């Protein structure tokens, strides 16, 4: 019951607003915000819902293909649902302030409702096809929201890029689903798949088991997560997605949607655990993403971009954790606990709060500085916007992993998983990333908030209105306390059991914190411009440029060539050549009708002779 309210309320809200926003006008905003609040309340009840797996609505039911809208209620979905509806509600409220002067407010809120609907769908999805459906729909809402200011060319390009990059991921996701669909006799229900992998026809000792298949399926599914969670090499869309309004960045491109990839990977962890190779690759990709993104973040000057790369990096962390946990499980390191826990999900949970807050904080800053986003044009905001500063600072240290804030616990869990995976590289890279995280976040805080205002807009900045401050404050509280049992238990966070004896991990994370923060303070205190300049990082390892070349060569140039070939050969051989032959024959046969009587008599006589010759001499010889 609650599940259907949570799912359908935003759907109808979105439908109503998107189709009738002209008529609704201001009411559209109320509908959207109202529905988000009601969903949140319903979600509080949902937290207490029993584990369940039931069909909500039919969709396609033909033969083996039984793809309905069915909900899978367990700890993971309850916890995730809370994050989504809670942050969703706060972002709705924040947007009331942030988008106050926007002409297209109804459209914005409509798309936001659409997003809430689709994200809820992903969270509740009980089978992979349903998950794919909502997977695509979050892509759509993300597209609409990034392109909210479509008049700006950069926004228009960014939303297109986001959608297309995600499409590439979905390409793999769908293949993965199809492989599982075929192999498991048409059943892609998550519960049933898990059973099939543990004791069903897909278990490793079953007859006809194919390790290659399992790896392929796992990697294909993973490709979906690569797209959605912006992992290397499909990470390029996320920084550009910052073209959308900042609340959107907070909700979609930091806290929830991009985390959907991780959520989904944890959902299919049975599959990843079944394939050592896939687990290693996943961990490796996560690790590379975390590290690369952190490196890129150190040289960004746009406040939202820093946060975006940070998000990338943290998502990489989570994905690495997924892989690492699976690797650990393959080595027999299964943490025994009554309650299911997962470092990736736990990090997702804490990260959602502080990263959403950071984004909203940056939103408040941008709002205050009249849409100035360059941190070097800010400075000294601490005095003008104290609440924003303090919440931002809390978020920063939480992200850096300062004990005992929530980020510390989850980061330690992730590093612990990397440590347990048995791969030193993962652990070292993870630690290095932690160093860099501390470094760039401290840099951000120092440059944007401390020191003196460097421009007029920073000078005249004033604190944001209440509707924007309030969500910040609430999120700040969660950033601090969410990792403690007092919150994490009722909120059904998948906190992994704390394993004693991980001294190395603890030290590593603390040292990383100190080194990174110290380095940043040393380098950036009181600076008016960036003392470090590393082109490679600033230009994001030239990924965009490389991809531009690939697209130009592999797509546009290829399209040009193929179009030419199609016109010349296909059209030429199949259509124009026969047409030309027939036309030539027509002209030739027409020559027979020259109008000369002698020619006709000749042909007639010749015809007679030919016919007689044929009938009397040739045909009898042929035998039939």
């Amino acid at each position, binding site marked *: 019951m609650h599940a259907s309210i949570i799912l359908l309320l935003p759907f109808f809200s979105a439908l109503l607003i998107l189709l009738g926003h002209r008529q609704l006008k201001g009411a559209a905003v109320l509908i959207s915000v109202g529905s988000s609040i009601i969903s949140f309340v319903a979600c509080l009840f949902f937290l207490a819902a029993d584990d369940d797996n039931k069909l909500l609505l039919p969709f396609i039911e033909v033969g083996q293909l039984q793809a309905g809208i069915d909900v899978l209620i367990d700890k993971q979905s309850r916890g995730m649902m809370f994050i989504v509806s809670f942050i969703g509600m706060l972002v709705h409220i924040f947007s009331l302030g942030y988008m106050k002067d926007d002409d297209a407010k109804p459209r914005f809120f409509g798309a936001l409702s659409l997003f809430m609907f689709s994200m809820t769908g992903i969270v509740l999805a009980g089978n992979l096809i349903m998950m794919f459906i909502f997977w695509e729909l979050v892509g759509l809402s993300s597209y609409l929201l990034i392109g909210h200011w479509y008049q700006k060319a950069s926004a228009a390009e960014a939303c297109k890029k986001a959608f297309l990059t995600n499409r590439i991921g979905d390409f793999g996701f769908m293949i993965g689903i199809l492989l599982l669909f075929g192999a498991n006799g048409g059943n892609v229900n998550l519960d049933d798949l898990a059973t099939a992998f543990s004791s069903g026809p897909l278990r490793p000792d079953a007859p006809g088991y194919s390790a290659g298949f399992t790896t392929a399926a796992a990697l294909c599914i993973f490709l979906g997560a690569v797209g959605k969670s912006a992992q290397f090499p499909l990470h390029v869309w996320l920084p550009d997605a910052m073209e959308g309004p900042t609340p959107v960045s907070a909700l979609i491109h930091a806290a929830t949607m991009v985390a959907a990839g991780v959520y989904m990977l944890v959902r299919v962890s049975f599959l990843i655990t079944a394939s050592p190779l896939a687990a290693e690759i996943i961990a490796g990709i996560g690790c590379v993403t975390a590290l690369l993104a952190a490196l890129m973040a150190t040289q960004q000057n746009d406040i939202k971009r820093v946060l975006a790369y940070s998000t990338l990096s943290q998502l990489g962390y989570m994905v690495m954790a997924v892989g690492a946990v699976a690797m650990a499980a393959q080595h027999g390191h299964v943490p025994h606990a009554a309650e299911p826990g997962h470092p990736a999900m736990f990090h997702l949970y804490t990260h959602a709060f502080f990263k959403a807050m950071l984004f909203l904080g940056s939103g408040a800053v941008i709002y205050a500085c009249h849409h100035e986003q360059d941190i070097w044009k800010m400075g000294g905001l601490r005095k003008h916007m104290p609440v924003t500063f303090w919440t931002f600072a809390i978020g920063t240290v939480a992200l850096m992993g300062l004990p005992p804030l929530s980020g510390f616990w989850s980061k330690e869990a992730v590093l612990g998983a990397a440590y347990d995976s048995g791969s030193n590289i993962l652990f070292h890279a993870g630690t290095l990333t932690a160093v860099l995280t501390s470094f760039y976040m401290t840099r951000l805080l120092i440059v944007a908030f401390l020191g003196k205002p460097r421009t007029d807009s920073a000078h005249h900045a004033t604190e944001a209105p209440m509707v924007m401050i309030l969500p910040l404050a609430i999120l700040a509280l969660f950033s601090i306390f969410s990792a403690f049992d007092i919150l994490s238990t009722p909120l059904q966070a998948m906190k992994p059991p704390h394993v004693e004896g991980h001294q190395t991990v603890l030290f590593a994370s603390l040292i990383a914190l100190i080194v990174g923060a110290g380095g940043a303070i040393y380098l950036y205190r009181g600076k008016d411009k960036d003392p470090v300049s590393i082109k490679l990082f600033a230009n994001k390892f030239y990924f965009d440029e490389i991809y531009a070349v690939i697209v130009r060569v592999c797509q546009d140039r290829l399209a040009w060539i193929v179009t030419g070939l199609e016109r010349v050969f296909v059209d030429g051989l199949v259509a124009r050549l026969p047409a030309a032959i027939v036309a030539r024959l027509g002209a030739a046969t027409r020559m*027979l009708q020259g109008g000369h009587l002698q020619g006709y008599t000749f042909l007639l006589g010749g015809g007679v002779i030919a016919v007689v010759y044929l009938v009397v001499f040739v045909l009898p010889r042929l035998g039939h």
Partner: protein
Amino acid sequence: MSVFTIEAGLALLGLVLLLVEAFKPDISRRTLGLTAIAGTALALVLLVFAKHDTASLPSFMQPWHQLDTLALFYKGFALVITLLVLWLTLECAPYLTRFTVDGKLAEMFSLPLIVCVGMMWMASARDLVTVFVALELVTVSFYVLVAFARKSAFSLEAGVKYLILGALSTGILVYGIAWIYGATGTMSFDGIAKALANPATSKTAALFGAAMLLCGLGFKVAAAPFHMWVPDVYQGAPTPVTAFLSVGSKAAGFVVLTRALDAFLVEGSIIATEIQALLLVVGSLTALLGSLPAIFQTSVKRLLAYSSISHAGYLLLALACRDSARFDLSSGGIVAFYLATYLPLTVLGFLGLGLMRANGLGEDIKDFAGLAKRNPLLALLMTISFASLAGLPLTAGFIGKLFVFLGLADHGYWGALSCAVIAAAAGFYYYFKTILAMYTSEGTDSPALTLSTATKSVAGVLALTILILGVYPKPLQKVLTPASEAVAVK
């Protein structure tokens, strides 16, 4: 009443009209035409009520004259086409008289009656002598008809070409008859069939005779490679005569071909395989040689001539498919069916052409431009006619083609089928080209065309016939079904 009496009466009427014109020169052509039309119509009515079996004939006629369903059908067919041609002549008279001596048209009303009698006779022929005589009656009359508009250089040229080539084919035909007689020792179709089924008969002589005979007949039905005269003669001849040639003369040729082939391809015939192969080759070639040169035609009349050749190809292919146990119609029946559906299409097409001429317009495709604006009804009727000629379904033209395709596929003659398909595909081009011209906006500034009520109704009936036969061919099949039984019994 005996059918023979009707034929004799019709011939008499033709002669009387000829004499009346000669001795009473001031008689109006309208009177003459209406008399001829009335006579033909009466004959048609009488035919329905006449005695319909061979036994009703005088016994001396029975060896060379028969009255099976096929014969009766073709007799009716001949009367209908003659009726239409006479009416068409009347319609085109004001234009035609400009090219005739003294503006007289008498022969144009009397000779068609003679031709009609010849065709009716041919339908009943049981031996080669009768065939020859009836055929020549038709052919010689046509020499006159084709060249009738003597003041027109085109008509005269067509007449000369038809005369020379027709006479040449007559020679070949007779020579073929001679050799068939030599090989089989008989002139009657029954006897020939019997002799050919006898392995002792000389195969080479029979083959030689049959080939020559088929060449001669091939000329009449415009089979390739004896089709060269068709475009020139059709284009040059007065439009009613062209329609008559295209439908009547061709039908007459095919009825003889049907009879002859029934004999040649009889069960156990020593020359069956060769003749059948020849028919397939000639049929395919005809369909192609009719269709391909038409692609570049600019004269609609000439286009219809090529179309007529192409249709002859399909008909030959239908004849090549013998013994289709799977449908009720024999190949002869299919040919009759095809010709019956072909009649309204062609006549409607030539009617349109004649009306264009009567309104002082040309016969080129460009003259058709904007017809839809000038006279929407005529454009629609012509569209129906041309679509049907192209073989579009839901029109009569399609059913016949379907039968041909069915027969070819049933026998596994895939090569011939491919040729037929190519020819039909090319056909789409030139028929649609004419249709397109009628609807273009160019030429819409020309004056509107007006049609008399009689014209409208005749054309309307023809168009309706095309459509009705296209969706409800059952009655026609009913008429023809006993015919096929009669053929099968033989």
